[in-house]
């Protein structure tokens, strides 16, 4: 019985590959995320430090003068760092077990009702991917009608962040269970931003699965902390050892160099430990 009950399924490592050559900076990922995850809004959102955007599109510049100037957009969700063996920066410091790393999916969770708002995780996160609710969310009259039941509305005093639309994973699993399956097809679980991106710049899937596009695109080297095998692929702050699951692809070297703090004459491709 026990042998039968054992699952053969391999643990997933859901991750994302964002092609910055295709990204047009249109912001559809940001808004699709807000709409999917009941992200609130307030009167002035131009102070980006307190503007809750689980997915935020940054604008990078190459620092050259006109007419050699160049810009590139970089969408930044939560990186769902695996760190050293699941010890991502935020999970390691949370005193409330409000954020957690799941080895089955590789997703870093955030449990709103457990969070007591110490913001230690925000200090620990090198990607500014976590946001604090300085105020209670308030929707204008009538607008609560569009809130989705799949994601709880947050309250004042807690931290929130991108969940890789984990509720979509749960809903997809429900459907799979109903159909007698325990495994999902690649297209069954996609994040809201991936689905919305009109330029097709975002790819989402299981980095451990060689049949999934994300794996084929960046060829992550699990023996070396998931380092990308593709020369055009890079991760943000690669040398920090956070082992993020969001990979970027750019054909421009200046963009790839913008992913970490390199010295002026430093070779980006030389691996250091």
């Amino acid at each position, binding site marked *: 019985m026990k042998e039968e009950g054992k699952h053969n399924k391999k643990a997933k490592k859901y991750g994302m590959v964002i092609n910055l050559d295709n990204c047009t900076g249109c912001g559809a990922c940001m808004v699709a995320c807000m709409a999917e995850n009941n992200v609130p809004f307030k009167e002035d959102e131009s102070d980006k430090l307190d503007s809750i955007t689980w997915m935020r599109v940054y604008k990078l510049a190459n620092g050259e003068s006109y007419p050699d100037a160049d810009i590139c957009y970089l969408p930044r969700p939560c990186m769902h760092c695996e760190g050293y063996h699941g010890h991502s920066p935020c999970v390691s410091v949370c005193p409330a*077990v409000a954020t957690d790393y799941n080895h089955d999916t590789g997703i870093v969770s955030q449990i709103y009702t457990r969070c007591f708002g110490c913001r230690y995780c925000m200090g620990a996160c090198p990607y500014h991917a976590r946001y604090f609710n300085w105020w209670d969310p308030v929707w204008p009259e009538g607008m609560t009608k569009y809130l989705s039941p799949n994601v*709880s509305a947050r309250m004042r005093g807690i931290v929130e962040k991108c969940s890789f639309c984990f509720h979509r994973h749960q809903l997809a699993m429900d459907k799979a269970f109903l159909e007698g399956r325990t495994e999902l097809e690649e297209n069954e679980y996609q994040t809201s931003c991936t689905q919305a991106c009109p330029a097709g710049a975002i790819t989402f899937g299981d980095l451990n699965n060689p049949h999934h596009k994300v794996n084929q695109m960046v060829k992550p080297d699990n023996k070396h902390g998931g380092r990308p095998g593709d020369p055009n692929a890079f991760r943000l702050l690669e040398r920090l050892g956070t082992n993020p699951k969001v990979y970027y692809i750019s054909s421009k070297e200046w963009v790839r160099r913008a992913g970490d703090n390199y010295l002026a004459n430093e070779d980006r491709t030389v691996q250091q430990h």
Partner: protein
Amino acid sequence: MSTQDDKAKEVSADGAAGPIILFFILGLAASLVLGWVIFPKLLYSQKKQPIDFNHVLHVEAVDEGCESCHFFREDGSFSGVPKLAQCVECHGDVQGENPNEIKFVNDYVANGREVPWLVYARQPDCVFFSHAAHVKKAEMECSTCHEHIGESEHSRVYEENRITGYSRDIWGKNISGLKSNTWDRMKMDDCAECHATKEIKTDVETLPWPLNWAPLPYEKQTGNQASIKTVKEACFVCHK
């Protein structure tokens, strides 16, 4: 020194030991009555269901048991308490002479108004519960959590906790929190109890971690240890 001791003896021997014990027992008895009898009555308000529902009658009339009305939708979601539209399929008009049915048809069907059922098993908003995972994948019986509700002829009184606003069924009927059946309580500990004893999760050996990254000692335990923090089931599985 000794005089003081004597005085103390004197006082205690002054016939006061009796009343002290009596008052101790009185206090004890009063608090026991308060805690076990009065407190539960004060804690919960009693609410009647809008319609007295007869499960037995309905189970007899349908072909597929519970799932005839409490079914899974194609997308894997669970329908829960039936909506009016579903009831109308049979109760478009009054079928018999049952006053409850007449009330249902006149008050709700005729006005197209949903019945404000009080859901005994309603969980807080932060809980994600997958019926598909439990009923379809784990092949659990509905009664494991919902007792043999299908055998009830009347809707029992809905008791609402005045402090939390949740149904009494979550804590359980027994105010002490003890339970004798799996369906007696529906708190997180009760979920965890089952999840801890049954091997539900992936075996740790199959995780494709890089071999040169040896697991930390406590991660070597077997069982449900998908979570890095709790070394148990990960929180996100049931919380949203």
